[in-house]
C-alpha cells in the first residue's frame, strides 16, 4: 500500500479498521481523518461509536486491523519508543493511586516519565499552580472530589511535556465549575501548540472545541467547527413558548409530529428541532394552549448530532403505558410526598448537610444540583434512607425513614449512577431477584417481569449475562429493576452519567411518562440539560440550600445587563460564586 505524503497534520489516520473479534461489527470502520496542532478537537458520539478505540490506537496501545496511523509524522507502532514522551494519554479512569497522596502520585508519574532534577521541581510547581491543587498535596488521591481527580490525572499526563494529548471523557462525573476549570487548563495547553483530542458523550462540552468529529458506529458522520455544524441547523430549532398545558404532555405530543425530529424540555418551554426549515409543526395537535407560539432559537451542537443520527421519534414511554396511575392515600399531603425538615448530617466536625428543607409534591420531578462534594449526595442519601440524619427528618409519604424504614422503603424505587445490577447474573435473574426482594412472587411476579421485558425490549437478552449488555440496555434494565414494585417515589442518582444523548432522550421519555402517572421523582445530576427536565431544583452548596425554584426561576436570579439570557450552567456557576462572595463578605465583617 502506498502511503501518500504527509499533509502536515499532527495526527492522521487513513482507512483505519479495528475488529476485535470475527463476527462482531468493527469498532472502527475505514476511518480517515486528521487533527491539527494547536487545536482542541472534540470526538463526540454515542457509547460504542469507537471513540476510545480511536484514542487507544493513536496512543499506540491498539494495533489497527487495517489502515495507517501517523502521530507527529511517525508510526506509533515502530517508533513508539520515541513517541512515548510525545504523547500523553488519559484514559477514562486515569490510573491514580488512591492510597497515595497528590504529591506522591505526581512523583510516581514523574519517575515513570523520567522527569527528574530541576525539570521535575519546575513542572511540579507549574502543575500544582495550574491545577490549583497546591493546597492539597498531602491529601490522598482517593479522597479528592471527581473534578480534582480529573485535574490531577491531567497533571500526571502532562508531566514530561507531551505534544499530543489524548483525553478520554475527562468530563464524566465532574461538576460544571470543575469542568470549566478543566476546560480552561486544556484551552491554555492548546494555545501553547499542543494537539488535543477530547472525547465526550456530551455535546455542550463539544461546543467549546475548535473542531468536532461526530462519530457513530466506527465512522465519522460529520466534521467541522461547532459553528459550521450548528449553522446547518439554523432555522430548525424552535421553542414552543407560552404553554398552557403541561409541558411534558406537549413534548410527548410534539414528538409524534412528523415534522419534529427531536424535542426536549427547556425551562417552561418545549424545545423542538424540525425536519426542514419553514415546515412548522402543528401547534393545535400538541394542544399547547391558545397562546402558544413558536420562537426560533439558536441551534446547539446536540441538534446537529441527533438529527444526523436520524432523530428521536415518538414521545410515548412503554414503561409509563404499563404503569398504573399513582393514587395516594387520603392521609398523605400531595404537596409533600417527599419532605426534608431541617435535614442535617455531620461527620465529626464537618457538616455535610446543613438544615436543608424542601417539599416535593406528587408527580413532580425535583432536582438536586450542586458542585462535587457540596453535600448533594449526602442529602440525597438521607432522603432514600442510606444515611441517618444527625438532625432533622427525612419523610417519605409522611413516614420517617428513621422509624419505619421497611414500610417507607417499599414505596420507593432507587437507581444509582453505576446501574447497580448483579453483573454476574443474567438479565432474567436480576429481574427475578429485584422483584423478589420487594415481595413480588408467583403469577404477579411473572406478569410484572413479562410487562417490563416487553416495555424495555429486553426479551432477546433474558439469558444474557448482565455484564455483557451494552450500556444502554444496562440502563434500561436498571430502571426496570427500580420500578418493578411500582414505587410511588423514584430516586435517581446521576442516572445518565456517561450515557449518550440518544439513550438519554429515551430515558427521560420514561421518566416524564412516570411523572405524568403521578410518580414523584427526585434526581441528582451534573448535566444542565437534564436539570431542565426538572419541575423544581434545589441547588446545594457547602451543605446549604442556596437556591430553589423552577429552572427558569434560577436562570432569572442571575439575569444581568451583560447576560440577559443565561443558560442553566450560567445560573449554576453564578449562584455558587455568589454564595462564595456572601460567605467571604460575612467572614470579613
Amino acid at each position: 500500500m502506498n502511503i501518500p505524503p504527509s499533509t502536515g497534520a499532527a495526527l492522521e489516520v487513513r482507512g483505519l479498521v479495528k475488529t476485535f473479534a470475527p463476527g462482531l461489527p468493527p469498532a472502527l470502520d475505514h476511518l480517515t481523518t486528521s487533527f491539527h496542532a494547536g487545536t482542541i478537537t472534540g470526538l463526540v458520539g454515542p457509547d460504542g461509536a469507537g471513540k476510545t478505540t480511536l484514542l487507544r490506537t493513536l496512543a499506540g496501545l491498539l494495533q489497527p486491523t487495517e489502515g495507517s496511523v501517523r502521530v507527529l509524522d511517525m508510526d506509533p507502532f515502530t517508533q513508539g519508543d520515541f513517541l512515548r514522551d510525545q504523547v500523553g494519554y488519559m484514559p477514562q479512569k486515569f490510573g491514580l493511586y488512591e492510597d497515595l497522596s497528590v504529591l506522591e502520585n505526581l512523583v510516581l508519574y514523574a519517575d515513570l516519565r523520567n522527569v527528574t532534577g530541576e525539570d521535575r521541581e519546575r513542572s511540579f510547581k507549574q502543575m500544582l499552580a495550574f491545577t490549583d491543587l497546591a493546597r492539597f498535596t498531602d491529601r490522598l488521591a482517593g479522597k479528592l472530589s471527581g473534578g480534582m481527580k480529573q485535574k490531577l490525572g491531567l497533571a500526571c499526563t502532562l508531566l514530561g511535556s507531551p505534544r499530543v494529548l489524548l483525553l478520554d471523557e475527562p468530563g464524566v462525573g465532574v461538576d460544571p465549575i470543575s469542568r470549566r476549570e478543566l476546560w480552561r487548563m486544556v484551552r491554555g495547553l492548546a494555545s501553547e501548540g499542543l494537539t488535543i483530542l477530547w472525547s465526550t458523550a456530551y455535546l455542550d462540552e463539544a461546543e467549546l472545541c475548535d473542531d468536532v468529529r461526530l462519530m457513530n458506529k466506527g465512522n465519522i458522520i460529520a466534521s467541522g467547527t461547532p459553528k459550521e455544524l450548528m449553522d446547518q441547523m439554523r432555522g430548525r430549532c424552535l421553542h414552543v413558548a407560552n404553554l398552557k398545558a403541561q409541558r411534558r404532555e406537549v413534548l410527548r405530543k410534539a414528538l409524534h409530529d412528523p415534522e419534529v425530529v427531536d424535542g426536549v424540555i427547556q425551562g417552561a418551554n418545549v424545545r423542538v428541532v424540525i425536519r426542514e426549515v419553514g415546515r412548522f409543526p402543528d401547534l393545535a395537535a400538541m394542544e399547547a394552549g391558545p397562546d402558544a407560539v413558536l420562537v426560533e432559537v439558536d441551534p446547539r451542537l446536540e441538534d446537529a448530532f441527533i438529527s444526523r443520527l436520524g432523530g428521536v421519534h415518538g414521545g410515548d414511554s412503554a414503561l409509563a403505558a404499563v404503569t398504573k396511575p399513582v393514587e395516594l392515600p387520603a392521609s398523605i399531603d400531595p404537596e409533600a410526598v417527599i419532605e426534608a425538615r431541617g435535614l442535617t448530617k455531620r461527620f465529626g466536625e464537618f457538616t455535610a448537610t446543613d438544615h436543608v428543607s424542601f417539599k416535593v409534591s406528587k408527580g413532580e420531578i425535583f432536582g438536586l444540583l450542586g458542585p462535587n462534594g457540596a453535600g448533594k449526595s449526602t442529602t440525597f442519601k438521607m432522603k432514600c434512607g442510606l444515611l441517618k440524619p444527625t438532625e432533622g427528618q427525612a419523610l417519605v409519604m409522611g413516614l420517617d425513614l428513621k422509624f419505619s424504614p421497611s414500610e417507607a422503603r417499599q414505596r420507593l424505587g432507587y437507581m444509582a449512577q453505576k446501574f447497580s445490577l448483579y453483573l454476574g447474573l443474567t438479565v432474567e435473574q436480576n429481574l427475578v431477584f429485584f422483584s423478589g426482594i420487594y415481595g413480588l412472587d408467583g403469577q404477579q411476579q411473572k406478569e410484572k417481569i413479562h410487562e417490563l421485558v416487553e416495555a424495555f425490549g429486553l426479551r432477546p437478552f433474558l439469558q444474557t449475562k448482565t455484564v455483557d449488555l451494552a450500556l444502554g440496555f444496562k440502563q434500561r434494565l436498571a430502571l426496570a429493576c427500580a420500578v418493578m414494585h411500582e414505587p410511588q417515589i423514584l430516586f435517581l442518582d446521576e442516572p445518565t452519567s456517561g450515557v449518550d444523548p440518544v439513550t438519554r432522550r429515551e430515558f427521560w421519555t420514561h421518566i416524564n411518562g412516570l411523572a405524568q402517572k403521578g410518580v414523584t421523582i427526585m434526581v441528582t445530576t451534573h448535566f444542565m440539560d437534564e436539570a431542565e427536565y426538572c419541575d423544581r431544583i434545589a441547588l446545594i452548596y457547602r451543605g446549604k440550600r442556596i437556591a430553589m425554584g423552577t429552572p427558569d426561576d434560577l436562570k432569572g436570579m442571575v439575569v444581568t445587563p451583560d447576560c440577559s439570557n443565561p443558560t442553566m450552567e450560567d445560573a449554576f456557576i453564578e449562584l455558587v460564586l455568589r454564595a462564595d462572595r456572601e460567605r467571604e463578605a460575612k467572614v470579613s465583617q
Partner: protein
Amino acid sequence: MLKRLFRLIVKELQVTAGDKKARLMLLVPVLLQIVIFPWAATLEVKNSTIAVYNQDGGPASIEILQRLTHTPAFERIIAVHSDGALQDSIDSQQALLALRLPADLSRNLQAGRPATVQILIDGRHSNSGQIASGYVSQILQATRSEHGVRPTSIVNIRNLFNQNLNFKWHIVPSLVAIITTIGCLTVTALSVAREREEGTFDQLLVSPLTPGYIMAGKAIPGVLVALGQAGLIVLAAIFGYGLPFTGSILTLLMAIIFYGLALAGIGLFISSISANQQQAFLGVFSFMAPAVLLSGFVSPIENMPTVFQWIAWMNPLSYFIPLAKGLFLKGFGFADAWPFLWPMLVIATCTLSISLSLFRRHIA
C-alpha cells in the same frame, strides 16, 4: 419476608456458583488441597539416610544394624569408617542422622554394663532429625533389653483410635475444618465487599429488607457453601483415603452448621470493616493464619503462653478440629460432641451479633 430471604439466598448462590468459572473457583482449591495436604503436611520421617560408623563389629552392633535396615524411616544406611567421615556425612547432608557404635559396645552389653552410643543429628532438619533419633533410641532400647540389660521401667505404647499412627488419619479430619474455613469466609467477607464496590449493596439497603435479613442472606449461603465443601472432603476422606467414619453423621452436620455460622459472623465482621474486596481479602488472611496456628492443628494449645490459650478458646477452629477428629476416629455421638458444639454456638452468637450491630451502625 421469608420469601424475600429465599430470594436473597438464591441470588447469592447464583452469584457464587452461577457460572462455570465461579463453580471451578469453589471446587478446584478444595480438590487441590485434598490431594496435596495429606501427602505434603506429614510429620512422619520416611526414606531418610543414616550413616553408621561401626567400631564394634560384635553381635550387638550387627543386631542394631539389622533392626535399622528394617525400619521404613531409613531407606539407606551408609557405612563410614572414620570419625571424620561420620561428621562429613552430616555436614554434606548425605545423612540425616549419624550413629557411632563404640568398640566396647557388645562387650559392655554382654557384661551387663551400660553402653554408650553417639548419635549425631543434622540440626538443619531439627524436627525430622529428632523424630528419627526417637526411632533410633527405640531400637537401641530394644537391643539393650534383649541383651539382658534391664531398663529402669518398661513402657509399652499402644495407640488408641489410630493404632498404626497413620498420619493421614490425623490430617484429613482437620482438613474438613480448614478448607471449609476458606470457602465460607470468601463467600461472606468478599461478597459483601464486592457488592459494595459494584454499588448493589446500596440497592439492597434502600429495599424493604432490614439489615438482619441482608446479613442472613449472606450468612446462610456461607453455611451452605461450608456444608457442600465439607461434604466433599468427608467423602474424599472415607473413599479416597480410607478413613473410618465412626461418629454420628447428624452431629457432623450440626457441627458444620454451627462452625459455618461462627465463620459467617467473622466473615461479615471483616466485610463490615473493609471498604473493598482487597481489604476484605487481607482481612480473611489475617484471620486465617493465626486461626489455624492457634487451633491446635500444628501444635497443642496447652503448650502456648496463657494469653494465646485464651485467644485459642475464642477460636471456633479449636473446637471444630478436635470434634472432626472425634467424629471420624473416636465414634463421637451427640453427648461426646456437646462440649465442642456449645462453644461454637456461643462464638457464632457473638460474632453474628457484633457484625449485625456494625452493619446497623454502618448504615447510620
